[in-house]
């Protein structure tokens, strides 16, 4: 019925007592997410909102509560350590929301995660939402910072490097009556835990996902790699959009990973690779849902 998370997924939150983490944890609980534990070193024994127990470490939190996924809201200097702790605790899924983690830290995390059982989403991402079937899509699982009410339960998978641009696509789908199986923000950093391709493969194997929207932007070659795989292997219709056609080379456009360098990572090259793979590419960001609807 979805990828990565389901409504019954048990979530712990690292950095639950920070203002940003607390606010979004509360919103996730209201959405229906099973938030079973919080982790803030030194605050064991306290409770979040009088209900969610707080632990000093991830391993004990997971052991005591059965949590299998973590959301990370820890500030950048401590975020890599938080991710490594979650990997070491053997969590299945780690979603790092934190923006501004040094690249070198993520290079180390990425090397450490190889061969582990953990899937990392992010950092610098809006998170993962599997919409529920109640009003405003409540009753689902929301990990991160996305607005819950824009979603609708259904069978379209969304994967994107951007936050608000993802909301735009989701909202277009919902307004057109198309619900989502799962929406995954993989984040705008140059060293992401998961790539477009990693998520597309999961959607391809998910019996309850009928079509896919893939949103990319300038920088790197992840969209080209995903497109090459889609061309040969993907059984489902894919629509897409690439942001940054007008971005000047050599400048980072907000996201650390959004840069055209050495003539590589241009929107033109990505769009060409996607069209070559049979992906329906939206001409403007207002037409992302439309681009999918016409090939469904």
């Amino acid at each position, binding site marked *: 019925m979805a990828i990565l998370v389901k409504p019954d997924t048990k979530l712990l939150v690292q950095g639950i007592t920070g203002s940003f983490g607390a606010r979004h944890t509360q919103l996730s609980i209201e959405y229906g997410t099973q938030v079973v534990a919080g982790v803030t070193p030194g605050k064991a024994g306290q409770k979040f909102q009088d209900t969610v127990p707080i632990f000093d470490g991830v391993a004990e939190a997971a052991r005591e509560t059965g949590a299998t996924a973590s959301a990370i809201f820890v500030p950048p200097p401590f975020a890599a350590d938080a991710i490594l702790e979650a990997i070491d605790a053997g969590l299945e899924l780690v979603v790092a929301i934190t923006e501004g*983690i040094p690249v070198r830290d993520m290079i180390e995390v990425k090397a450490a995660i190889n061969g582990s059982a953990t899937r990392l989403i992010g950092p610098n991402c809006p998170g993962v939402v599997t919409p529920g079937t109640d009003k405003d899509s409540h009753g689902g699982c929301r990990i991160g910072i996305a607005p819950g009410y824009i979603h609708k339960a259904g069978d379209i998978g969304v994967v994107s490097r951007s936050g608000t641009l993802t909301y735009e696509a989701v909202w277009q789908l919902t307004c057109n009556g198309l619900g989502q199986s799962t929406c995954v923000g993989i984040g705008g950093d140059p060293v992401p835990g998961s790539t477009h391709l990693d998520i597309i493969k999961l959607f391809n194997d998910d019996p309850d996902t009928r079509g896919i929207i893939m949103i990319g932007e300038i920088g790197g070659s992840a969209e080209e790699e995903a497109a090459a795989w889609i061309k040969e292997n993907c059984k489902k219709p894919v629509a897409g959009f690439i942001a940054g056609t007008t971005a000047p080379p050599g400048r980072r456009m907000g996201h650390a990973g959004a840069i055209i360098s050495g003539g590589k990572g241009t929107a033109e090259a990505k769009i060409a690779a996607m069209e070559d793979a049979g992906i329906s590419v939206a001409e403007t960001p207002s037409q992302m849902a439309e681009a999918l609807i016409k090939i469904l």
Partner: protein
Amino acid sequence: MEEMNLHEYQAKQLLASHGVEVPGGQPCTTADEARNIAEGLFAAGQEMVVLKIQIHSGGRGKGVFKDGFKGGVHLCKSADDVHEKAKAMLGNTIVTKQTGEAGRQVHTLLVASGEKIVDEFYLAVLLDRETSQPLIMASREGGVDIEEVAETNPDAIVKLNVDPLLGLQPYQARNLAKALGLSGKLIHHGAKLIAGVYKTWWECDASMVEINPLCIVENADGSQKIAAVDAKISVDANALYRHKDIAEMRDLNEEAELEVEASKYDLNYIKLDGSVACLVNGAGLAMATMDAIKHYGGDPANFLDVGGSASTEQVTAAFQIVLKDPNVKAILVNIFGGIMNCNTIAEGVVAAAEATHLKLPLVVRLEGNNVAAGRKTLADSGLTLIGADSMAEAAQKVVAEATA
């Protein structure tokens, strides 16, 4: 600021402190200081001294100053010559292939030993995004544009991925030195330098370290050594909190004034050449908004991400910044209020428009949480703003206003 560029002299200081051989020299800001440094180098036995302007731009040697003086890099045989050239360049504005027509004013010079160069190579360390590992690139063709080499003679470039948990191993550095064509003792010199450059990249949280050219130079006694004759470093701004010394190297003279101003308010602003200003929340949506403006025949005046919260203070600062750009003819505000209440954003936009006495056409597209109240606030504000329901409609309307 996602990454911070360093001057050549700063890059060489960091490299030298990690064991990399660089030509002796010092930075200065006056012609008299330049003469003093040069006299010291000549007294130590140097036959030539090189004088290099310190600006964040490539193509310095071939640049032309606004008063017609040619070249930002000069080889000098006497301290008097150094003094004369330094005087001509300091405070003067140079135009290179990278500065644009406005050029860049020169505040600092590097006075260094003019080495006898026997051969030139290229060396760089950067992130390989495909593998998420450090990548070392080396080429026998140095002193030229590496992108050109990649195009015309890709076989001349050797690439090596480094396991970040092991670090660069000595044998790997020796192999790279051999791949550059070094032999005998120079293999060891080269390997030591390559190891130092990698260490600099790793320990300084650099995004990029580029040595171009890396040179075989001849010593006074005829023996040879390997040295980093030019160097460029950019540092990951997210890591500056753990490098106070590097953070202090920031040179605001080298950054666009409006971009520096924007960074004070946590706004991510990049100035472009068009006439349609845009204020957007989120980097991806901001890029997509620029693209939509272009798609409907306009040209974006900027990239501007007001961040996730888009507070009244930030939106006001954003208006003030885009209004300082004289090319701007119309403004588009595009906000997807996810968690945020659209009405709060609308109130912020109205307050900002009033505070800045906005006269230019303003198109606002709001979507998301409590959008009906937000649209009502805008409609009731008494401001002559133009509403739009979709990004496409907003882009069309703002382009029409900018080109009217």
